[in-house]
């Protein structure tokens, strides 16, 4: 019982701990330096901001 709970709690600490480590890396790496630009990384010259990219198929030409 005690050993099991000990293992479980160490599991919880491991999960949260690895999150903290990853967070530390992200801060050091400068991942959070420019948040407003970062949000735009999924857009590019081909599919720029302002271009919708999905719609229902239809037979009629737009």
């Amino acid at each position, binding site marked *: 019982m005690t050993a099991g709970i000990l293992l479980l709690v160490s599991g919880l600490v491991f999960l949260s701990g690895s*999150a903290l480590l990853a967070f530390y890396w992200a801060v050091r790496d400068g991942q959070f330096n420019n948040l407003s630009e970062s949000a735009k990384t999924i857009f590019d010259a081909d599919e720029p901001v302002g271009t919708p990219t999905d719609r229902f198929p239809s037979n009629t030409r737009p």
Partner: protein
Amino acid sequence: MKSQSLISSLNPANEPDSLDSFERAEIDASTKLPVLLFFGSAIFWLLVGSVLGLVSAWKMTHPGLLDGEAWLTFGRLRPAHLNTVIYGWASAAGIGVGIWLTARLCRVVLMHSKLLIAAAIFWNLGVFVGILGILAGDSRSIEWLEFPGYATPILFVSYAFIGIWTIIMFRYRRPGHVYVSQWYLFAAFLWFPWLYATANILLTWQPIQGSAQAAVNWWFAHNVLGLWFAPIGLASAYYMIPKVIGRPVHSYYLSILGFWSLALFYSWNGMHHLIGGPFPAWMVSASVVASIMMFIPVVTVAINHHMTMRGHFGALKWSPTLRFTVFGAMTYTLVSLQGSSMAIPSWNTFIHFTDHTIGHAHLGLYGFFTMIMFGAIYYIVPRLVGWEWPSANMIRWHFWLSAVGISIMVIALTIGGILQGFAFYDPTVSFRSSLDYATPFRIVRGLSGFLLLGGHIVFAVLFTQMVLRIGQIKEGPALFAKPSESQKEGVAV
């Protein structure tokens, strides 16, 4: 990118050569085989799981239905339903979406697709063996881990392959910002194999004793939602919503805050299933606190998606992906706040062990996760096969059957569950008569299952037509299509 061996990809001494630049279409095309394998098998299991669920649901009100055969009893069909939809459908669909997103977000063509194809084969083998095991009577009677001990290692191999692949892709990514969806996928693909292995070791190979088993069980079962399904679903929503309407996330800061608070709090949530159980009170209390803390990540996601969508709700009319994804994202807020409230001990007293919990589970796994997966598949598949979805009306049918079906199911189970809970609590009502309160709602739930099954059949037909490229040629695959001026008018900028 040069093809290289798995070993050299993993060797830390090798400098990643990540500066090649790729066209988006090239990246999409590179993911075709593994992603379609995962999607195709997922949809097959979705149909199997829907039938198993439907039969189980009707057995609740008509116990004589299909009796006589051991493998058709409720005790086997119901866990078979749960595991088919969890591992066969939802996880496989999530892995498919995750693979496609990872390649796009790392901005490199998919490497080591053989590893992923092997993962897909192991995955389906594991699910197949597991379901047969349950129907044959080898269910382990541990909720969410009913697969017998000879099936779980097969699934673990698959998880491990995907984890290794994720790390390789991240190493060889093109430099730049790590988008929030990528963080969510890391949480899912790197934590979950570890979680799955731990739970299986502690419950099957080296079982711990006594009530600690219950702790491990619920720690795992809740983390399946929090560290596997929720991150994959949110990764997809955080990519699809901005991408479809062509507008960056409202507050990127909030999205980051939401991810890190989820990463810190969620793994503590599981013990709230054991409120009132023979269990150290401090562990339950810590879990209740963490459950309430979940308000932070949930509210940040809710505000963010709503504000991104603001002024663009007209887009729901013309984008199938957005329709499903926004339905799922709104349900995420609802189901999470409901979940936090269910962890409050005084309320938990009434609803524990009632149909209310079943309603909550379906709201989360169907209303939130499955709907987001449908949305993502509608976006991804045309870009893989270079073919347009054959029928807009069929997509509409799929959406409304699923949306109405799940709404009816959850409302019926929630009301029925609450009535049942108050009856449980009333010493003048016998257990037998407390069930009568739930019966009419269970019949409604059974009927709603037909709607869902109908939606899934429509979806399966559409998907088959896409893969086989059946149907008349449309004006061009969705990836090349732009909404017309009249369609854009509904969309304020």
